[in-house]
């Protein structure tokens, strides 16, 4: 993954110099291990800050909403799918974008790494292809990358960008034989009371910081329903029913649009398994409409169109 850094810098420099784009959006290396910061570059002489590694798990599409001008952006599989969704939903025009595609082999789950070293402070991470070395004040451990993928990356079947103007490496082989919905099936099998307990426990640590919502490229409404005051749909205290309402409704708003990029889960400061809210809806879209979000510009999303043969068994 590190090999992309130089290529991104070269490409960005070229695009900015040739004035093919006004700005370029990528990552810069973070000030602490396993964290990278989104970066906007407009000066071709300052592209050396651009960076790429195994910890670029945010969704840069988030920074495209209603932007004007020509924008260059790096995009791996899931990010590119969100770009497609953004174009379909008129949040950005295709011809405004120069998409620099990155075939992705998954991002590392920083929480899993911290767990593996028993929450001891990590001072440096050395990334070498299939393995990475974690260094602290009094320890050094080597891990296999494949065992530390973000949970969404582990079940990802669209690692290659679906839309791009230029590709920075050879396409990678897509994973096969993954069963992405095992966790959802487990919940489906529970009785109502168990389900209630599951979701109540899931949000028990939520502090209503809205990092999940704000990290999500789908959440671009000018005023979110939780911020409406007339009427006020959701209470603002830490009351669990209000918190559940926020999470359930947010998930519904992502139905048929979520690409399972995992940004919500990655950014949660409390480590909540945010994907549990959206995944059931992804599964239903798959089962009922054979739909996966953001794969093509040519088809409208299922909740956008009516077909006489739409699933309607639940209507009596």
């Amino acid at each position, binding site marked *: 993954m590190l090999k992309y850094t130089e290529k991104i810098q070269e490409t960005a420099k070229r695009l900015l110099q040739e004035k093919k784009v006004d700005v370029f959006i990528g990552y810069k290396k973070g000030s602490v291990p396993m964290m990278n910061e989104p970066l906007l570059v407009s000066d071709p002489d300052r592209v050396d800050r651009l960076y790429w590694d195994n910890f670029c798990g945010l969704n840069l599409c988030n920074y495209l909403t209603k932007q004007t001008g020509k924008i260059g952006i790096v995009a791996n599989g899931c990010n590119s799918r969100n770009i497609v969704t953004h174009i379909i939903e008129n949040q950005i025009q295709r011809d405004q974008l120069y998409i620099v595609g990155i075939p992705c082999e998954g991002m590392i789950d920083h929480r899993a790494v911290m767990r593996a070293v028993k929450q001891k402070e990590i001072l440096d991470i050395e990334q070498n292809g299939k393995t990475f070395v974690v260094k602290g004040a009094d320890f050094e451990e080597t891990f296999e990358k494949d065992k530390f993928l973000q949970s969404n990356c582990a079940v990802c079947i669209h690692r290659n960008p679906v839309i791009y103007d230029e590709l920075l490496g050879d396409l990678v082989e897509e994973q096969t034989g993954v069963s992405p919905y095992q966790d959802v099936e487990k919940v489906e099998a529970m009785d109502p009371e168990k389900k209630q307990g599951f979701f109540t426990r899931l949000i028990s640590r939520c502090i209503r*910081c809205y990092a999940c919502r704000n990290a999500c490229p789908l959440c671009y409404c000018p005023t979110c329903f939780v911020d409406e005051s007339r009427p006020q749909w959701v209470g603002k205290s830490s009351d669990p029913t209000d918190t559940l309402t926020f999470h359930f409704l947010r998930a519904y708003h992502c139905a048929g649009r979520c690409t399972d990029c995992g940004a919500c889960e990655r950014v949660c400061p409390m480590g909540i398994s945010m994907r549990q809210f959206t995944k059931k809806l992804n599964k239903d879209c798959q089962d009922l409409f054979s739909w996966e979000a953001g794969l093509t510009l040519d088809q409208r999303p299922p909740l956008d169109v009516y077909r006489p043969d739409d699933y309607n068994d639940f209507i009596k």
Partner: protein
Amino acid sequence: MTDKIFTKEEWMKGLEGLMDAYTLFVPVKDGDFHAFMPLSEGKIPDFDFQNTRLSPKSVIYPQSERLFEYTLDSADAEANILKESPKDFSPRAIVGIRPCDAHAFQIVRRNFDNPEYRDPWWVRHFESTTLVGLGCNDPCSTCFCTAVGGGPFHEEGLDALVFDLGDRCLIKGVTDKGEAFLTNMNGGKPADEAVLKEAEGLAASASKKITSSPPTDQLKGKKTNDLFTAPFWEEVAFGCLNCGTCTYLCPTCWCFDIQDEVSGKKGDRIRNWDSCMFPLFTLHGSGHNPRDAKVQRVRQRFMHKLKYYVDKYDNGAQCSGCGRCVRYCPVNIDIRNVCKRMNNF
């Protein structure tokens, strides 16, 4: 003031013995992280931690707190008249609070307890709480308490300070409240010179381990409007999600919202933590919003901490250097870098 030395067993036993006199908030392992929780049956205090993910500010200032209650039942003579909600202000102690977080209470206190107004809930909760600190033998690389007037064994703001000396611990009383805590605690014996020397050495070596030190010396001398119009804010703010992680995890962020909630004929007036990161924070009823753009809100947070507070109280920055926002900001906006840019602007 008393200095007492305990074996680790005596210390744990001693704490258990205090459960009647105090509600003890101790660090408890909670999933991947630690959190301050009331010590009760089945809760095991774990002092082998760097710091809790959430600051202990919620012990004194809960995220959501009922202030008043009332009835809307017109048949009731007291309808629509607010009454203070009953609260428990019995003695509490936060045991194992890090010196930065205790220092943070002093920073916040200037806001909640000022010559003109005293916030009745914050003040009473604070006054009924004893802060028993645990010095940091091994500060993190993201800690910068020494840059903002604190230190890994800084006593200001603490009532007592614990030095972890391996199989024993030294507890130093700092204030009368701390003395009372020590007096109430069973076990231990007076510490001799050698132990005190050992503790001093520990504190000195811990201070040396602090590696990050953003400069803050020029902040006061800067002109507010020069910093306000500085060219770097767009760049600082670019990645920001405008989530509340930094403000909610911060031990020195105090902003709140007041909301009325009604259930049937009963109503509550509740205060909730709020965040200057949220657009709603400054939205006027008319629709006008003086801080409508992300960059304005990001600037507000840093300006408030590192300039406005500095000017208002002439007592340092509104930051205790705990490093939580550095570690947990989902997009890695690092206050140390921003501070440096402001200071050197």
